[in-house]
């Protein structure tokens, strides 16, 4: 026991002296989790809460273009700047000059196109209801109404699609309203009664979103709930730089050789490394969780909500830490130089993180990438933490994670043992 304690103290002293390693293991994840959470939270607010600046060039000679502008102004999603006289050719450059993310050109025949389409549909319906004479449907030819959207190239695809959807929604409302109005006119009324028009607009289905959960309590998914577990896992696995490098260094200097000449000292050293880095990993997690719970709200970020059951969190944290340590030992044992251990270790963790869903969720990846991602230990750690932090999962939801992480850890430890045995260290 005294020998083990001495080894643990030695490993601790070496770790404290490894300033770069400490920075990578503690400051880097804190910085990453702050930056990524703030960025994702800002993006979330940009789409859901902020107003987009939009330049509208309304050339429409009818009234529907004006209605669309009013709807844009009243939607609460846009700050509308009107430029009715601007030519089409200038819209692109003016969008950038005026610092707008998007510009909208409503063509001069926009009202006419919508009315023509409404008239076609109304005629078809009345013909099919046999209110008017039967007309061959092939004779109805309608041209789709068009509006043009100019956007700043810095606008990401996802934001642009979100804006497209918002605009589509508004145009659809206008089209439906016009269609019904036209139907009334064709049936001999003057226009659609105002109360019916208002009712139609009020009857739009509202979508109420609720996060799915396997347990009783449900967490509101937000950038904190996603990022704190994800980047904590990344930080744990990034200890490959410190632990892997440390192992190679000891192997390349004579320290390991001297340890071989002291009874049982070598295994004691490996065991003490596991203990020290296990403490490091748990400290990383604890620190990042504390930041999520206490510091994030002070910065206006969502608070990390801890799962109700602590034991599964501890088990998944320990298994993740063991997996990370075992991987670092494996890299440190097989690498021939410290540069090799650091380079391969860092790159492999970045790849594991990318395919494992740390940076972008797995579900947005193609099927084959999702399958490949399953080899990543970070993916399974993340699955475990997401089960607990987002879905309020129980032990049965963690089975896959637990089995994979145990198998991964055992495989790494076995390969490490084989290599050390071949090198005559044990």
């Amino acid at each position: 026991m005294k020998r083990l304690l001495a080894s643990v103290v030695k490993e601790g002293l070496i770790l404290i002296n490894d300033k770069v390693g400490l920075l990578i293991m503690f400051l880097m994840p804190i910085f990453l989790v702050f930056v990524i959470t703030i960025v994702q939270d800002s993006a979330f607010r940009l789409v859901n809460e902020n107003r987009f600046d939009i330049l509208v060039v309304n050339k429409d000679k009818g009234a529907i273009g004006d209605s669309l502008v009013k709807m844009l102004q009243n939607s609460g999603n846009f700050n509308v700047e009107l430029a009715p006289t601007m030519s089409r050719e200038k819209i692109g450059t003016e969008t950038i000059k005026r610092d707008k993310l998007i510009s909208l050109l409503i063509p001069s025949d926009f009202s006419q196109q919508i009315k023509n389409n409404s008239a076609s549909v109304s005629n078809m319906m009345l013909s099919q209801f046999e209110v008017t004479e039967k007309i061959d449907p092939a004779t109805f030819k309608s041209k789709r109404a068009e509006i043009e959207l100019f956007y700043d190239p810095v606008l990401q695809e996802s934001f642009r699609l979100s804006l497209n959807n918002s605009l589509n929604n508004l145009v659809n409302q206008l089209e439906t309203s016009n269609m019904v109005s036209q139907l009334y006119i064709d049936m001999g009324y003057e226009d659609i009664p105002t109360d019916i028009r208002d009712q139609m607009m009020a009857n739009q289905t509202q979508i109420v979103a609720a996060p799915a959960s396997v347990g009783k309590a449900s967490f509101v998914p937000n950038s904190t709930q996603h990022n704190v577990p994800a980047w904590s896992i990344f930080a744990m696995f990034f200890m490959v730089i410190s632990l892997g490098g440390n192992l190679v260094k000891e192997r390349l200097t004579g320290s390991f050789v001297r340890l071989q000449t002291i009874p049982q000292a070598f295994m004691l050293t490996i065991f003490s490394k596991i203990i020290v880095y296990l403490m490091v990993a748990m400290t990383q997690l604890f620190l990042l969780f504390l930041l999520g719970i206490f510091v994030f709200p002070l910065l206006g970020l969502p608070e990390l909500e801890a799962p109700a059951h602590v034991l599964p969190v501890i088990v998944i944290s320990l298994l993740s830490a063991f997996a990370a340590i075992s991987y670092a030992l494996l890299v440190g044992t097989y690498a021939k130089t410290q540069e090799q251990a650091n380079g391969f270790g860092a790159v492999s963790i970045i790849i594991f993180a990318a395919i494992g869903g740390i940076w972008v969720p797995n579900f947005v990846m193609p099927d084959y990438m999702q399958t490949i991602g399953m080899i990543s230990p970070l993916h399974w750690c993340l699955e475990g933490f997401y089960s607990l932090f987002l879905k309020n999962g129980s032990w049965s939801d963690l089975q896959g994670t637990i089995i994979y992480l145990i198998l991964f850890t055992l495989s790494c430890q076995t390969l490490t043992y084989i290599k050390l045995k071949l090198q005559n260290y044990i």
Partner: protein
Amino acid sequence: MQEVLIDIKELSKVYKSSERPSLDSVSFSVLKGEKFGVFGPNGAGKTTLISILCNLLQASSGSVLYHINNQQLNAKSILKSIGFVPQDFAFYPELTPVQNLRYFGSLYEIPKQQLQDKIDFLLSKMGLESVKNKKVQSFSGGMKRRINLAIALINDPEILFLDEPTVGVDVQSKVAIFSILEELNHRGTTIIYTSHHLKEAEDFCDRIVLLDNGEIIAINDMQSLFTENNVQNLEELLIKLTGKTFRD
């Protein structure tokens, strides 16, 4: 007549990557309390021999028996009784001399007070008292060699293996190191030594074995070998017996 401490019989080592044996049926004895030198050109088998004696390598065939306290022990069983000074710096440069000595001493389960006394004694002996709390990475080559030696002595070894203990050190450190080694030897420690510094080896060793291509080409006390081969020094002896052809 001196007692036999290490009995080496028909010792051979063939590495998987090599067709030629690095050690080929080597047999000799090391006597208790002697300063025994192992010499030869590069690739002769010196490091392989020392590695097997320190249990760092397993022999392909043959045996090594240590006679300690009227017991016959193999290399694995005598680890607590040996000290090893490898050519590389075998310590933790991020730690201080005290931290290094305390760590390695604890691995031998030396009682706390006894370990502290031993650390103080070794640091004083090696002239490292004034820097005992400074990180070893800031030390000169000579200081690092002395701490490398001090760690090997923390367990009061009966047998001390030295592989190039004075590489890259100044004359003051060299003199200090040999003075300590002589003192140890007078107190009964058997020293097995290998080096390319033939002059210092000549001054230090009682008896030597010369290896070439994994085989013993000569073994005797220094003066007898010089007389038998009609040479003046160890360098001449090596050239005479192993030739001038490069070995690596």
